[in-house]
Structure formats: C-alpha cells, structure tokens
C-alpha cells in the first residue's frame, strides 16, 4: 500500500491529482445530462468509498454497514430541509456529528467487549439493518414512503445547495477532491502512521505505546461522519430518500466496491474503482433491462470483483503505479548510480 507513495514523488502525485480533477471539471462542462448524472454518482461514491477506505484501508476496521452512516446523513439533511426549511449545510454538519457519535458508540461498545474483525463487521450490518427497519416504521420520517425534496426550480442556490444536475456534478467533484486530498493528508499525519501500525499488527502497535482502543473508536467515528456527509448530498442528488435504498445492504456494498476494486488504502483507489465499477453496473443494468435479464448488473459486479481479486489483488490503482514505476525504472536506476558515485 505504501508502495504507491514510495515510487512516485510528492509533487508529481499532487500535480497528477490536480490534472485529473481539472479534466473532470472540463468533462462536467461539456458532457450531456446522462453522463453528468452518472459521473455525479461515481464521484459521490468516490467520496463515500474514501470514508470506508479510511476505516479499513488505513485503520484496519471492516464495515459492511456503512449504509447506517450514509442514511443518517441523508435523513438529517432531508428532515431539516423538507420539514423545517433549514439549509442542507446545517443538515450535513448535524448528520456528520450524529453519525460520528453513533459510529463512536458502536465502536466503543464493540471493541470494549472484544468484538473485533469479522464480528465487528457483522455488528455493523446488524446496526444498519436495525436502523433501516426503524426508519421504515417511523412515521415522522415518512416511513417506507420516504421523504421527497421539492423539485429544484432550476436556479442555482449555493446557500440551499439546490441547482441543476451540473451544479450537483461540481458539488460531487469538490467532495471527491476533498476526500482524496484528505486521505492523502491523513495517511501522512500522526493519525495515519498510528492507524496503519494498528492495522498491520495490533499487539505490536500497543507494545510501541499506541493506544489502539481509542484510535479504533476515532477512525470509525471519522469514517462515519464523512460517510454521512456523502449520504446527505446523495439524498439531495436523488431528490428523494427511502429507508430501503439509502440504508439498504446494497448501498453498503456499493460503497466498498470502489476502494476494493481500485486499491485498498490508497488515495486514488476509490476514484479509479468507482470509475470502473459504477458505469459498468449502470450499463449492465440497462442492457439487462433491454434483454429482459434483470440482475445482469449484479452479475457484472460479481464478475468484476472476481477478476480484480484474481488478477490484481491489490486493486487497479497500485497496478497502474507499478506499471508507471517500471517505465521509470531505467532513469531512476541511473540517478541512484549517480548518488552512489557522489557519496
């Protein structure tokens, strides 16, 4: 995982990142409505995938119930905005705080009683399913019928986060950029080092003075809070939220496909993975509908997962970095030879 950071220099990586996002901005200015709405979803899942990636790829804690946090964020924004006319900015903040708190409580209880690894993952599923059923039976939040946003009037309103598809595309683009830059910064901060240490070997990390318990609670909490922000925006983009879709198992799986396919623990993995998996998912869905083969999209997901795990177990992004490193190797070899001579 840290190989990516070793082989490509800092300036180059930030430069490449800026270039990718500039290109995506241009795409957003030029493309048609279908491409824009598809890429908006890709970018939102890049951001939410990044939050999931932070928790597993860096913190070493597996969640298969991220729908819980995404749903909390979506509902916080929707309830405040639809029922009380409060700006989504407040909803996003409140959703993040609530999800961060729920994540912290879940992690605290779980790790306090030594529920770890795959058992913790099962607990996250249970918590998400509990919330889905609870929200489905709760009339105040619309029950199973969900909550609907008023159709946007077409005028862009940054204060109320309302606008057309292109507006949301740029919101999602900004979120994805923040997610990637944030992951990069965190993984090179004190938290990043300590989290990667506890991911690789919990007992050895503790022997080196890392208070792994509090750091696990912290990483789950931060991941939950950021997922809620993504969920809040996702609800706005979709224009309506229903417990079965926003808190369903399917969303928990959608979130993890990007980082797993793209490269766990890397900054660019979730973007690359979401770019690869989500359009394929949609295309296969459309193809399945026209052929009368419902479920073809899920088959495609499964096939992509199997292929990636089989041929590129680290994910697509590390493979790209390796390829780049191999091309650069002759030049690097010469440089290291020169250094030796100087010494």
């Amino acid at each position, binding site marked *: *995982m*840290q*190989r990516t950071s*070793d082989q490509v220099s800092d300036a180059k990586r930030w430069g490449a990142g800026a270039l990718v996002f500039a290109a995506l901005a241009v795409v957003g200015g030029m493309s048609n409505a279908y491409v824009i709405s598809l890429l908006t979803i890709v970018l939102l899942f890049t951001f939410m995938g990044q939050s999931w990636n932070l928790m597993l790829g860096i913190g070493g804690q597996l969640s298969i119930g991220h729908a819980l946090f995404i749903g909390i964020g979506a509902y916080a924004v929707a309830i405040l905005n639809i029922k009380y006319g409060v700006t989504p900015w407040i909803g996003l903040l409140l959703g993040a705080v609530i999800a961060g708190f729920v994540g912290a409580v879940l992690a605290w209880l779980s790790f306090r009683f030594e529920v770890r690894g795959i058992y913790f993952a099962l607990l996250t599923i249970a918590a998400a399913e509990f919330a889905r059923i609870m929200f489905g039976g709760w009339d105040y939040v619309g029950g199973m019928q969900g909550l609907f946003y008023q159709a946007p009037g077409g005028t862009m309103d940054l204060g109320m986060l309302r606008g057309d598809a292109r507006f949301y595309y740029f919101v999602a683009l900004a979120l994805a950029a923040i997610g990637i830059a944030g992951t990069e910064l965190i993984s*090179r*901060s*004190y938290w990043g*080092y*300590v989290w*990667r*240490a506890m*991911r*690789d*070997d919990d*007992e*050895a*990390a*503790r*022997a*080196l*003075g*890392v*208070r*792994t318990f509090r750091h696990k609670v912290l990483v789950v909490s931060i991941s939950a809070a950021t997922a809620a922000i993504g969920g809040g925006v996702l609800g706005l983009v979709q224009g309506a939220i229903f417990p079965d879709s926003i808190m369903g198992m399917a969303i928990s799986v959608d979130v993890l496909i990007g980082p797993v396919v793209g490269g766990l*623990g890397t900054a660019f993995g979730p973007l690359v993975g979401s770019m690869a998996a989500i359009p394929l998912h949609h295309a296969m869905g459309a193809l399945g509908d026209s052929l009368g083969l419902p479920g073809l999209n899920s088959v495609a997901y499964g096939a992509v997962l199997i292929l990636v795990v089989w041929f590129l177990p680290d994910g697509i992004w590390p493979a790209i970095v390796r390829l780049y490193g191999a091309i650069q190797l002759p030049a690097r070899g010469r440089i290291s030879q020169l250094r030796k001579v100087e010494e």
Partner: protein
Amino acid sequence: MTALLEVKNLTKAFVGLVAVNDVSFSLQAGRITALIGPNGAGKTTCFNLVAGALRPTAGQVLFEGCSLEREPPEAVCRMGIARTFQIVRPMKDMSVLENAMVGAFSWSTNVKEARDKAYESLETVGLAGKANARTDQLTLPDRKMLEMAKALSTRPKLLLLDEVMAGLRPTESAGVVGVLHRLAEDGLTILLVEHVMRIVMEVASTVVVLHHGAKIAEGKPSEVVTDPAVLESYLGAGFHA
C-alpha cells in the same frame, strides 16, 4: 545502587500449570540483566508479565516505584519500558523508517520529530541505509535490529529483549552484542531473555536463572555457571563442576 525495576513474588498460574512461581528480582539502572533457564522455565511468561502483555496471578512489578502489573501494554510502554518480540513483528505494509517512527509517536505527535527519532534509532542499530526498504526485503538479522530500533524510538528507560539473538549466526550476534554494550554505556537498562549462553556471559552483568517457573539462582554470570543447581537444571542431576 538504585533499582529501576523490582519484581516481587511474581506468580502466574495458567490452568494446570504454574508458569512463574514466586519470582523476585530487581534490575539495576544502567545494567544489562539476563533472564535464562532451560526450555519451559517461564522466561517468556515472566517477560510478558513485566511488559504488561499478561496479568500476574499474584505479586508485584514496580517500575520507578510505580506498580504496573495492572497496566495495559501501551501504558507500560509510555511509562518507559519498551519490548521486542521473540518472533519479529514488522508492520508489513510500512517501510523500515515508518516502522521505526511508530514508537516515536508514543511521546510525540509531530511527524518530523518522529522521523528524526526513527532515523536516530535506525542509525543506532545500523539500519539507516535501509530506511526506505520494505520490511520483507530485510534479512532476519536486520529484522531483529528493526525490532530494536522500533523499541528504541519510544525513548525507553528500560529495554526488554526477548531472544533477540535467536536464529542469528555468531558474526551476526556479535553485531547485536556491540549495540547492546553501546546502549548500556549510554545509560539504558536492559533485560534480556536469552538462550545463547555465550552471549549472556559476554554482555550481562547479572543473571537470573529460572527453572520450572521458580528462581534458582541469581548473580554474576561467572558465579551462576558454576552453581550446582543451575548445572543440574540444564544438564540433569549428577553433573557438577
């Protein structure tokens, strides 16, 4: 002479086995003490009790007068006791330097400060040239040295080494012995659990001998090796010097 660490009547009972039985000894500041004994003598259990990895059934471990037998390993480390593992445990997806940095984060949250300390630790053990290597590119002796560098980054007052020489060739362990001498000269207190007697004789100023969980001897290496009880525990009854 001041004792940095005092072990008093330490006992650890597992189901059906008393691994450590009423053991007492103390570590003098700035000295190298070795904990030896035949296989199954309770050395590693004793070591883990001091490091906070196990809770004792009875007895006390006092470090600078503070009792630490109820403290978790991370707290023990933060009090100034660092340990290595018998089976090396590098963080496999982090570079050599990053591994050494983790220990420094027990007293600093500053990445640059941690990196400087990590380089210093790697230099002490002679790994500075491999700072950017991946841990799976290291040889076994280098991995053992990395374990020491990780521990040194925590700025310990007491260093616990669990069979750091096991599996090393004589020339390789000579390097380790050199490092240990230098660390002791700088005032670090060291407790090592060791099988290789030749090395114990070379580095330790005091030796504590365990057998079947109980302490059977304590003293200078030269005294201990002629102790009839020690010879009997290693070689069986009937061998006397």
